[in-house]
């Protein structure tokens, strides 16, 4: 478990744990090591903050309305409904 021992000085490992903690579980030992890392590393602390915000914004991508370009054009829709009607008539 050299990975664990390295966390305190290793930003690559620390950011890995940050991501794992955000959506899964990390061990108590890992949590403590991560906190010690944050204590000495403001850059990873910032990464942690930004990473959380990015997750929230990614989730909001779909909810975010007001994108009129995200609509199908009417011709395509008409064709599609015609195809559906054709299939229904076959039955």
């Amino acid at each position, binding site marked *: 478990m050299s990975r664990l021992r390295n966390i305190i000085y290793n930003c690559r490992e620390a950011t890995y744990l940050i991501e794992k903690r955000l959506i*899964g579980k990390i061990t108590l030992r890992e949590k403590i090591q991560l906190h010690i890392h944050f204590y000495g590393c403001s850059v990873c602390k*910032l990464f942690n903050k*930004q*990473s959380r915000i990015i*997750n929230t914004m*990614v989730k909001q991508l779909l909810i975010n309305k007001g994108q009129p370009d995200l609509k199908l054009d009417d011709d395509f829709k008409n064709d*599609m409904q015609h195809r*559906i009607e054709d299939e229904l008539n076959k039955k």
Partner: protein
Amino acid sequence: MLPDQTINPHQWVNNHADYMYAYTLSRINDEEQARDLVQETFLAALERLDKFEGKSSERTWLTAILKNKIVDVYRKRSSGLISTGEHKEVHEMQEFFEEDGHWREDHQPRHFGVEDHNPLHDKEFNQILQKCMQKLPALWLAVFTMKHIDDEPTNVICTQLKVTDSNFWVIIHRAKVNLRACLQKNWI
């Protein structure tokens, strides 16, 4: 409110096509492919109209079919890239950190405004976010969207995309480090 549990294919396009198109585009940023997937979903749904049990709303039912089609696309896009892409991916990752695991000076996270979350910037920021997501390798994007947008359980993602548990976490980590760096580069 109870979901509308009837099914009416004559109104499908009217009621659901735009929603399904936006749903697909947020996961697969390819308009032509998104259009095809919506159409394929309707046709596939017609084939199994008898399987609709009214347990969920029509839209939920259609979306479930669409979702499976999207996962198929993820799978197709990422198959073959896994072995050949691995080497490049590892290399891309090393650019952010020194050998000893410290941030490389020029790639360190810096404040770039999202921390204050100004809603006025949201629309523009979202566009950059989507562009940056599309720059991720196909498999990473698939893992990332299934987890972060769809909230799928990790084991489901691993099974559907055929990645191991440890690879899953490596991908989640790399995807975020890359995505964050791309946002910093393009937003400031």
